[in-house]
């Protein structure tokens, strides 16, 4: 039985450290884990925007932003030779991470304790702290 690990990434150095951590400690496991990368894009385009911009353009934009955030984590996994899947969701980050973890029935979430935006972490709390509250699987926070 392979272990399924979800790593939410936002392109920040912290998120990439979480990926490195998993790669470094693959040896702990008997079998190579199944790694799922997830990037969540805030739903910037509300109903009003959809009146003027077609859905295809909006999705292209999310896809581009998501791919950009995923790029470094993917490169690290590629060069480590680990199999992985990657995914882009749109919504509120913590909720989307927890929902995806449930859907995919992952065994563990490995994520950075601090995300992209230092200031909003400070004032509003980090995504990581919200995920630890909501998730039903163990969450490993990387400093």
């Amino acid at each position, binding site marked *: 039985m392979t272990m399924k690990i979800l790593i939410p990434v936002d392109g920040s150095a912290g998120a990439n450290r979480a990926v490195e951590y998993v790669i470094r400690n693959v040896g702990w496991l008997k079998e190579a884990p199944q790694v799922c990368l997830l990037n969540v894009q805030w739903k910037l385009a509300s109903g009003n925007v*959809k009146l*003027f911009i077609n859905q295809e353009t909006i999705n292209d934009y999310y896809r581009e932003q*998501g791919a950009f955030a995923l790029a470094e984590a993917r490169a690290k996994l590629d060069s480590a030779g680990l199999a992985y899947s*990657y995914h882009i*969701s749109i919504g509120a980050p913590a909720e989307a991470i927890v929902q995806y973890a449930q859907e995919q029935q992952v065994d563990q979430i490995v994520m950075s304790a601090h995300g992209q935006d230092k200031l909003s972490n400070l004032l*509003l709390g980090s995504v990581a702290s919200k995920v630890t509250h909501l998730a039903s699987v163990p969450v490993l926070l990387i400093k």
Partner: protein
Amino acid sequence: MLEMLSSTQFWVDVFKIIVIDLLLSGDNAVVIALACRNLPDAQRKKGIMYGVGGAIGLRIVLTFFAVSLLSLPYLKLVGALLLLWIGVKLILPEEEHGEGNIKAETHLLGAVKTIIIADFVMSLDNVLGVAAAANGNTFLLVFGLLISIPLIAWSSQLVLKLIDRFPVIIYAGGALLGYVAGEMLAGDALFKTLLEAQHVLHWLIPAGCALLVLVVGRWLAARKTAKARVIDLLDEQVPSPHDKS
């Protein structure tokens, strides 16, 4: 001027305008960025520049237009009703519009046209809210405009993050819009004699309007089915090189 700065009412109004600007900043920045996406690289910067410039200009013109309209008798009544509706709309969960037949603009003029039309539509609520909160004070009006300009030019996830963390902001914002609408209503010529007789109405009408927005907003929101909040966009597998061999 200095006298104005030391009054509590002034700072309350400033606060009101900042909140209204933030919550009704619209999605101008998102539209500008997205409308220019399909332009050739060389034109994209130009498109964004024209778009931002046009949006700011439009916002200024609309604001002064709104102010002069609101000084006409009975139009405050109309403005107040509109504001009440804007407040309720803020509380309602967002409706998913069916996909219209909108084609992506691939030339500069088309993109700028999209931006300007979108700006016009999305600025109306903000302009009305700020004009109502400023209540004829030119300094407050200009202040409100200045605050909204960076919000037009730079897309920010700040508001999304704030609402995600403190969902109650939506209700506070709705109540504030209701309150401002009530103040405008009370300021209409129609109620002048009534208000002079009953001073308590000066705060009773705004408070009642704030409550109205909250109740109607909650009621309408409860009737809507909960929407799927997370959307899956992309799923892909990358096999390890060892599997291939």
